[in-house]
């Protein structure tokens, strides 16, 4: 198990950027992060305003999600996400309009036509595999996709994500075991925010880091600071390259923060120290990355404003679009139980 970070100070000058990462890449990653956050915040507004019955957030996970997804080949690789992966879904091509339709359960929602709760990202066209709500079942699907890719002789890579709490499920063990035996091109991402709803990590596992489990599968395991998109990207690229070149699976644990309650149905004040949350808010990955990009001279105030404007416009458009969209017709209830 390796510890990884981009060596903070080590990256304060542009010429020291990890190979392959251009300014444009960094700006794109930053804009995805801002878009994910702003979209998420709007969803909460709609929930508190009574228009959206449910919201589950990626706030605090965006840097990790955007960096991890950016290391994949969109259009070729396969994503098997979990409910917080809004940032990944955006990188893979779901649009704010798509996600707002899903939020409101409206007709045209490409992820489920209003059948699933928000946060169930899905699109065959975009290689985002449909998921359920039971945690950790998807990690086995990730291994299965990778098995098919291998048997078909492709160099496709599958990435599947789960929270650290979900790693307690038997499915997680079975997936890592199967993937390591067959040396599959799959990356197991654990987004470790320290909580499973109210249950803190120390009640979920006896180890300090999930990545310590990788050795039990003869698999590389890496813990990375998921608040640092560059460090995360470096780790993800290494894993993706390994998987694509036949080097087998990798377990990546991204340490992140959960800046919201578990979901709009949760109230975290009963179990979460206010100080802890404050401390984590003070290390919000988005302002941290912004500051860094400005230091690096990659991002100017002007560009920042343009990004904010673009994002705001997209979100307003998506909100209006979804609000005006019709609900599915009740007759759709009986469709798609079986194929023709």
């Amino acid at each position: 198990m390796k510890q990884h970070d981009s060596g903070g100070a080590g990256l304060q000058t542009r010429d020291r950027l990890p190979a392959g990462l251009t300014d444009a890449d960094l700006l794109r990653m930053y804009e995805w992060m801002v878009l994910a956050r702003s979209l998420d915040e709007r969803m909460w507004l709609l929930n508190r305003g009574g228009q959206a019955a449910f919201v589950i957030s990626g706030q605090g996970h965006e840097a990790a999600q955007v960096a991890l997804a950016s290391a994949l080949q969109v259009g070729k690789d396969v994503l098997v996400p979990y409910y917080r992966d809004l940032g990944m879904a955006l990188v893979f091509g779901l649009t704010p309009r798509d996600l707002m339709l899903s939020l409101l359960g409206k007709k045209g929602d490409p992820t489920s036509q209003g059948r699933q709760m928000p946060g169930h990202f899905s699109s065959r066209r975009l290689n985002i595999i449909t998921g359920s709500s039971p945690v950790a079942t998807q990690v086995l699907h990730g291994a299965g996709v990778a098995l098919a890719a291998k048997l078909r002789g492709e160099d496709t890579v599958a990435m599947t994500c789960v929270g650290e709490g979900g790693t307690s499920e038997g499915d997680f063990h079975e997936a890592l075991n199967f993937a390591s035996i067959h040396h599959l091109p799959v990356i197991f991402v654990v987004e470790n925010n320290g909580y499973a709803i109210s249950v803190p990590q120390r009640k979920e596992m006896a180890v300090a880091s999930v990545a310590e489990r990788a050795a039990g599968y003869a698999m590389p395991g890496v813990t990375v600071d998921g608040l640092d998109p560059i460090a995360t990207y470096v780790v993800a690229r290494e894993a993706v390259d390994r998987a694509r070149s036949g080097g087998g699976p990798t377990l990546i644990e991204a340490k992140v923060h959960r800046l919201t309650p578990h979901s709009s149905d949760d109230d975290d004040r009963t179990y979460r120290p206010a100080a802890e949350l404050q401390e984590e808010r003070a290390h919000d990955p988005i302002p941290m990355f912004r500051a860094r990009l400005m230091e690096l001279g990659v991002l100017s105030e002007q560009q920042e404003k343009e990004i904010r404007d673009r994002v705001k416009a997209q979100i307003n458009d998506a909100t209006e679009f979804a609000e005006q969209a019709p609900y599915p017709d009740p007759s759709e209830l009986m469709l798609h139980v079986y194929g023709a």
Partner: protein
Amino acid sequence: MATKLLIDAIRDTMFEEMRADERVIVMGEDVGKRGGVFRVTAGLVDEFGENRVIDTPLAEASIVGVAIGAAFHGLRPIAEIQFFDFIHPAMDQILNEAAKIRYRSAGDFNCPIVIRTPYGGGVHGALYHSQSIEAIFTREPGLKVVAPIMPSDAHGLLKTAIHDEDPVLFLEHKKGYRLVKDEVPDNDGAIPIGKARVVQEGSDVTIITYGMMLLESLAAAKKAAEKDGTSVEVIDLRTLRPLDRDAILGSATKTGKVLIVHEANKIGGVGAEVAAMIAEEAFAYLDGPIMRVAGAEVPAMPYSPPLEHAYLPNQEKIGAALDRLAAY
């Protein structure tokens, strides 16, 4: 006696039983400080401590499997599965272990555990927070399954379940938690497992139901009485295994017309067994077909409001069936 919501009746009963018997422990996801995602276990950890109110890892097989092991060694665990929809990883432990322990050991061992879980829909929970899959469990000999909807019944049946020497699956309708109230006796009034309740006597048609559909059925029965004087007998099964044969056959024999109503989908539901029992043992008394009104025959309840509404049975659908049955 006090008027209580379903959720409070269940919580208060756990307090009573944990005070009365230190062998009773509660274990499940978020049951501690959080008091459960629905707050059913709120306050238990404060009074009984983390040894008796255990926040488990997110792993249902271990919640039930560890509970079974603890029961083998003298405890009486109440295991909470956060949503019925997530009980699947524990099915091996429930169906192959808990339900078969007494039989396979010819009575040398037994398995006194209670598995509590919220079920049912109508709360925008979509496919995976709305399920009513009780029929998977009611077919299992060795297991007992209860689904009280009235707080007083939940109180009495939870007491009985905790005292029972066999495994009991205790189903709590999540929509009913804060919607259904009635008079609940204090620390008293244990109700036997396996006894249905005639909620309303009638002579023309019998409705056999349970869960939130009891309320819809009563509303439909009221309408039918007002509309054309149909006298509807309404039975709340309360226990889904073992079924109350006397109550079911007795009422079927009396009215000769039976309508079965549940939220779970129709094919292979609890209603199928109730209908089959009547068709086999009360056939001679029937004056009409045994009808069923149930959830839509789709994999699960969708999220979008119009689809969720279309999925669920309601008093209109029940009323229409009553009209057809009364016409026989």
